[in-house]
């Protein structure tokens, strides 16, 4: 139905898609049907079974293969004469630089994480290529259009920080099931099966346990004279019995809390578990081994009793040591690893039982532990359709008609798909404007390393940073550095800010640049002596990135004169799933940080009251949904 003019714009266009997951599959299909002829698609992921309910270009036989490549082949079956170029790669790789982005007429995102979204946003700004951004979760979705200088960029509105839990809540005083999951996954699982060199707070807590620190190291090692069942029971008794007793001895903690109950294996499981097979079984592939299967527990939606959880705990532990021994020491929790999910579910439930917290099914526990976001095919299809409509407007340079569109679960003033005019760029956005940030930090105690990790990489989302004070370079990352420079930078990392060769003190202005993103910003340093361990766990506070100025008179109606201002469905969207990224924080001790941890969000201390975007990431499609509707209407429309 497209007009001739529109069709020729589509045919000429060179399009970059980032993400070939839930939204990506639908998008690639709709682009191809709409007449696009030159599509490039980047996705680093491979196909998994849980993708198949919605990523319709993939089949069971494709599990394990590259999403980008399989998606290409599937679409070429019904549109054989178009060009689709797949990249099985991370969009953050250096080959996807600004010059690469400049080749495209428009970039379409169907990503599953904030880091990559921010990265693509910056490259699009640097290359001055329009970006259509999208996200879905369950029945909710949104599409936004970002054009440099014309509409707000993806980072104009601060994103909420991932949910974090104080370390003592996790180690000593859990009150919710999620606390037990974090303990089971990030502490116990990591301790037993992960990297032994990682710091782990499992045994170090409540101030007065100094006496047992060496002893506790041994507890988790299998002794020569014990078999795997004895070992499992000893671990069980140690973490669910002994450790609880130790915690109970600290009377102060329990003055205003319910006391936990120590649990010992002999009280729960009277008989010795029968061992089906000896330890001679060979290691076999991940995924084939299941404690549920060997215990004949079928339904993952059932909530197991304490005894069942205890059996699963011991059986899963036995299976790890007997069948997957080679992996021990290198394992990190993976939601697609059945045995790992079983172990974490059981351990979390036993701990929950100890603390009087309701138990949960494996299905629910997996959702919490794996940070799984709901996803259905229909929403992705709708969102993909909306992306293509906006992409075509971009190609036609139909500047006045761009819309950001929300897909709602419940209609708001009869609208299920709600278009809103895009907003102007936020003048105080540190990404698309040149507003400096400011950082409060203890310049005498904080090391350059802390600044690099927590601020430059964590909050500013840079991959290849260069840090400068005036003309002198304090730190730089890159492949072609001289050895002596590498040594100097490495030494600088360990120095306190005020002790650097070119000292950073109150009043210093630092310039931080990312060469790949071609993005640079300035940071004004302010010295501050004290930080609150719980509220300001980084020991530094970044600020200066504030919401767009409120302009109440500019509550322009959209489209044909209907005001959308008073009907925005505030609650519905905010009721949606929150980003449940789990990240423990503590004052002194940095808790285990899984490799996937995103520390990326900018400090929200000033914006806490108004979360602007809930970042609802599915592991593979994902989304950033939906905004605080109230403040949304106050921002300036373009």
């Amino acid at each position, binding site marked *: *139905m*497209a007009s001739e003019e529109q069709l020729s714009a589509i045919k000429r266009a060179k399009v970059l898609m980032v993400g070939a997951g839930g939204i990506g599959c*639908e998008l690639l*299909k*709709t682009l*191809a*049907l*709409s007449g696009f002829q030159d599509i490039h698609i980047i996705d680093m992921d491979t196909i998994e*079974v*849980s993708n*198949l*309910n*919605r990523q*319709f270009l993939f*089949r*069971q036989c494709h599990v394990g293969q590259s999403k980008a490549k399989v998606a290409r082949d599937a679409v070429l*079956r*019904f*549109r*054989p004469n178009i060009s689709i170029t797949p990249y099985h790669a991370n969009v953050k790789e250096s080959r996807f630089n600004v010059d690469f982005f400049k080749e495209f007429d428009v970039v379409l995102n169907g990503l599953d994480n904030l880091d990559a979204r921010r990265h693509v946003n910056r490259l699009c700004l640097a290359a001055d290529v329009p970006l259509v951004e999208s996200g879905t979760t*369950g*029945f909710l979705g949104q599409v936004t259009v970002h054009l440099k200088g014309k509409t707000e960029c993806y980072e104009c509105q601060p994103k909420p920080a991932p949910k974090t839990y104080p370390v003592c809540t996790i180690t000593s005083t859990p009150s919710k099931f999620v606390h037990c999951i974090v303990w089971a996954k990030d502490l116990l699982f990591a301790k037993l099966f992960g990297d032994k060199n990682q710091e782990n707070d499992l045994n170090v807590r409540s101030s007065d346990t100094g006496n047992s620190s060496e002893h506790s190291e041994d507890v988790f090692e299998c002794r020569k004279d014990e078999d795997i069942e004895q070992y499992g029971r000893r671990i069980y008794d140690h973490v669910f019995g002994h450790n609880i007793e130790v915690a109970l001895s600290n009377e102060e903690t329990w003055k205003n809390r319910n006391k936990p109950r120590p649990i010992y294996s002999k009280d729960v499981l009277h008989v010795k578990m029968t061992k089906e097979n000896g330890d001679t079984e060979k290691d076999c592939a991940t995924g084939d081994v299941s404690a549920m299967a060997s215990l004949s527990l*079928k*339904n*993952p*939606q059932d909530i197991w009793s304490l005894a069942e959880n205890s059996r699963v705990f011991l059986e899963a532990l036995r299976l790890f040591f007997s069948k997957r021994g080679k992996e021990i020491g290198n394992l990190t929790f993976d939601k697609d690893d059945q045995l790992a999910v079983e172990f974490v579910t059981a351990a979390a439930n036993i701990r929950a039982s100890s603390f009087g917290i309701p138990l949960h099914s494996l*299905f629910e526990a997996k*959702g919490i532990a794996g940070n*799984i*976001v*709901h*996803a*259905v*095919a*229909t*929403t*992705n*299809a*709708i969102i*993909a*359709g*909306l992306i*293509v*409509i906006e992409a*075509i407007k971009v190609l036609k340079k139909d500047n006045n008609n761009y*819309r950001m*569109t929300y*897909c709602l*679960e*419940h*209609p708001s003033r*009869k*609208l*299920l*798909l*709600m*278009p809103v005019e895009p907003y102007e760029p936020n003048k105080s956005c540190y990404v698309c404007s040149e507003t400096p940030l400011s950082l409060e930090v203890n310049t005498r105690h904080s090391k350059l390393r802390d600044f690099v990790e927590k601020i430059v990489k964590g909050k500013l989302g840079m991959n290849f940073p260069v840090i400068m004070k005036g003309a002198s370079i304090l730190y730089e990352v890159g492949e072609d550095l001289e050895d002596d420079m590498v040594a100097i930078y490495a030494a600088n990392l360990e120095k306190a800010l005020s002790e650097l060769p070119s000292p950073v003190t109150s009043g210093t202005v630092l310039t931080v640049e990312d060469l790949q993103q071609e993005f640079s910003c300035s940071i004004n340093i302010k010295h501050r002596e004290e930080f609150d361990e719980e509220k300001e766990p980084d020991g530094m506070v970044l600020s200066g990135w504030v919401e767009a100025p409120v302009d109440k008179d500019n509550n322009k109606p959209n*489209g*044909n004169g209907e005001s959308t201002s008073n009907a925005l469905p505030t609650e519905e969207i905010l009721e949606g799933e929150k980003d449940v990224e789990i990240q423990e924080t503590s004052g002194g001790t940095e808790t285990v940080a899984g490799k996937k941890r995103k520390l990326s969000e900018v400090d929200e201390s000033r914006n806490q009251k108004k979360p602007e975007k809930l970042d609802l990431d*599915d592991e593979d499609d994902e989304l950033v949904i939906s905004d605080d509707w109230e403040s949304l209407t106050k921002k300036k429309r373009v």
Partner: protein
Amino acid sequence: MNGEELTEQETALYDRQIRVWGADAQRRLSKSHILVYGIKGTVAEFCKNIVLAGVGSVTLVDDRAVTQEALSANFLILPDENMYHGKTLADVCCDSLKEFNPMVHVSVEKGDISTFGVEFFEKFDVVVISCCSLAKKKLINQMCRKLPKRIAFYTVDCRGSCGEIFVDLQDYKYSKKKLEETVECQLEYPSFEDAIAVPWKALPKRVSKVYFAMRVIEQFEDIEGRNAGQTSVADLPGVLKLRKELCETNSVKESQIPDALLERLLIGTSEYPPVCAIIGGILGQEVIKAISGKGDPLKNFFFFDAMDGKGLIEDISKP
């Protein structure tokens, strides 16, 4: 509901969506039977969505031959003549849909749907029809209504950059969560015939213009004896004449149905793929809601227009 439990395979495959609508809804889906009549781009999208969702069975009816035009927005047809030669549209789409989800039974029923008896429709929980005449829409809707069992009935059509869904759930009870409580709700739907017979004057002022425009063209095709979608811009004068008559009968201003809108709807039979994806997605969601009995179903028309980007629900029933 305590039917059989989901199998391990189902739990693994449907994990992400069970997290949206629950295991109960998934079980109901797997026992539901859907009839689909008239396959074009929008219906292809819809079929993909419900096959992925894991309904029990999908029965396709469309005896038309595969033409170049049928390929335009339909990704279920591979553009290889050897593949579709001698097959009907339903046959070809059936083959593709089967691949999407081996747990769903997809089959083809041949023949003229208007000659099928009531007992044929009784096998289904949901009937979706598309690309068919006004008379056929009314007829099939009436068949579904005659049965003692409640069949969810939908019509869907895309014309150019606009799409329309009509829903008839008859007397529909469902539950929804309000805060912590589950509330029982009830909705009364008119038939298609009754809905479109509601005098335009009696409708709320701001009813979507697309509703009226769709009715004018539908009637035009009916009077001219055309197949659904068999119109072109050349028909504009005739359509404008009919608009005048209908507006006079209904005492509404002709400006309620702008020329430009009618012109956009008359572009003929080719569909606009992004709109197919959107309408097929909304319809998929509605059918899933109706089967699972969860969530507010839309009552009783839905419109999407790519021009303004609005996806709008209109309740067209006797006040």
